[in-house]
């Protein structure tokens, strides 16, 4: 065979080492975001330890720390002090720092896991519907229609009333939020897949004899990351809020287990009289949102070969 080996250009170092991590390493924002996420996860895991260091727990009432005339934390900024770093919760006097750190457990778990469920389902179903087309597409599309048109409120209330207590609440929540969340992802992914399906490289893969799974994994998925990442990262805070809304319907994580969403909705009414009550859990949620999204941006850039190399 031909032994001519004179590539049409100067030898270039192999780019194979340009892994995801490598690319992310150049993105300071993504790194900062990753650090924040790790910190929050650590805070969630180590919540009891952190609370112990502070010397508090999120359950004990300290009504003596409340302003007797209105029930807000006594003292400046909602009762911030050396022993209550974030102050105390109005009406109960429970330690807000402990509530926020413990709340990270519930909110993070549910926000991230439910998002994962809806994204995985949405991508699988959406991509297969768009790619396979025909009756399968009709079925998936109609199911998404049904789910989107279904009155979730009544379903949640019913569920709250009939779900057996034996099912762990977080699991129930993740399933329910995830199940109602996937149609949106599926629709977007399906639409994108429809236009990818006709692209030459997908046709090429099909002509090579690639099966559905291969085409999905190797051809479609890499080209779907941009919308998937966006929907995924934006869905996380939405789900954290959704969990809070569900606790008003009796399907949420039952009190007194802390959750950011519930704290935030409790705090809304206090925004004028005790803003700190809103600010701490609100800031935690916002930081997490921001971090996930910035990390998502970084990932998107890293996964896009055209933008991966930074100036």
């Amino acid at each position, binding site marked *: 065979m031909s032994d001519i080996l004179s590539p049409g250009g100067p030898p270039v170092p192999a780019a194979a080492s340009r892994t995801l991590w490598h690319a992310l390493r150049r993105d300071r*924002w993504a790194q900062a975001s990753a650090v924040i996420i790790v910190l929050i996860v650590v805070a969630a895991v180590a919540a009891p330890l952190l609370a112990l260091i502070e010397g508090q727990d999120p359950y004990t009432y300290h009504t003596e720390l409340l302003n007797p005339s209105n029930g807000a934390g006594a003292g400046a900024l909602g009762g911030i002090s050396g022993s209550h770093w974030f102050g105390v919760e109005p009406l109960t006097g429970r330690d807000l720092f402990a509530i926020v750190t413990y709340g990270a457990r519930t909110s993070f778990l549910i926000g991230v896991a439910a998002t994962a469920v809806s994204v995985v389902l949405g991508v699988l179903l959406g991509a297969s519907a768009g790619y396979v087309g025909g009756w399968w597409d*009709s079925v998936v*599309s*109609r199911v*998404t*229609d*049904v789910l*989107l*048109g*279904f*009155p979730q*409120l*009544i*379903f949640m209330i*019913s*569920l709250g*009333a*009939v779900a057996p207590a034996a099912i762990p609440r977080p699991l129930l929540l993740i399933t329910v939020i995830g199940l109602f969340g996937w*149609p*949106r992802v599926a*629709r*977007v992914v*399906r*639409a*994108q897949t*429809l*236009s990818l*399906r*006709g*692209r030459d490289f997908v046709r090429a893969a099909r002509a090579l004899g690639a099966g559905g799974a291969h085409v999905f994994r190797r051809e479609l998925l890499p080209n779907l990351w*941009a*919308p998937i*990442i*966006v*929907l995924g*990262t*934006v869905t996380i*805070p*939405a789900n954290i*809020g959704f969990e*809070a809304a569900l606790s008003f319907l009796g399907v949420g994580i039952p009190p007194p287990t802390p959750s950011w969403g519930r704290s*935030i*909705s409790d705090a*809304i009414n206090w*925004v*004028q009289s005790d803003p700190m009550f*809103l600010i701490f859990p*609100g800031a935690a*949620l*916002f930081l997490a*949102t*921001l971090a996930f*999204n*910035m990390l998502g*941006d970084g990932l*998107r*850039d890293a996964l*896009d070969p*055209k*933008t991966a190399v930074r100036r």
Partner: protein
Amino acid sequence: MNRALRFLGGRLGGMLVVLLVVSFATFAVFYLLPTDPARMSCGKPCTPENLAVARQFMGFDKPWIQQYLGFLGGIFGGRTFGTGATAIVCGAPCFGYSFQQNEPVLSLIGDRLPVTVSLAIGASLIWLVAGVATGVFSALRRGKASDRVAMTVTLAGVSAPAYLVGLLGILLFGFTLDVVPVSGYVAFAQSPVGWAWHLVLPWLVLAFINAAVYGRLSRGQMLEILGEDFIRTARAVGLPERTVIGKYALRNVLLPVITVFAVDLGALLGGAVITERVFALPGLGGLMVDAVHQVDLPVLMGVTLFAAFFVILANFVVDVLYGVLDPRARLT
């Protein structure tokens, strides 16, 4: 054209099936509730005899499958509740009769629909335009401070509860600045200016909450598209950057955006509960929530069907629109 008709027919059939499934599922789920719909009409004190009377009058004494069929039948043939002088006649198409509100569900919905539609259309247009504009802006300034700021601001919207944003909006614009009315609804026919004036704040609030997805989606998509060869061609031809971005790139960017838009708009047409509540707008969302809390099955069914109809319609429109926007994805 024959093909188009067949496609349309198929989709219409699909729509009907979906509506049937949704209504059936709603009916079924409703019966999972431990509450008794007749209790609300039973009065106080509610003796078992009173309850039985109410139940029979409202038709809740029959097996639920039969009730469901009765509901479906009412859509075509109308229904009559009770007998004699006080019988309530609900003419076809009868989507049920609310004993709580003493009105046929259809007319209840008819009253509320303009409000919800006004709210939904206005808000969604704002967030679509604002979201996409922010996203495009951010993409063009990728990595710069202005990109980060724009994205951070839109993200504040997703992570903030609607109630909070609404309340703060009212406090700021309604009271402190005193520029817009804080509640109520003025019919468009009555005064177009008043209509818009009363809706500005709710529109903005809803838009702020929803814009983030659009901003981020268009940003990511824009970055993707900017790397395509055809953008290079458009530039090589000397098209102004405005056209390159605003037309050549945007059309491609819009593809995933309008899909989410359809989902969101469809859902919104079913009512934006919290926003409606905060701004005292008598829309479908409030009707639905009341129906759930008053165990008002007929209203629940009616609103659900309407909401589902909108969702399906919006998705259908998008499927068609998608073919227009992207010829490669045209349905064959």
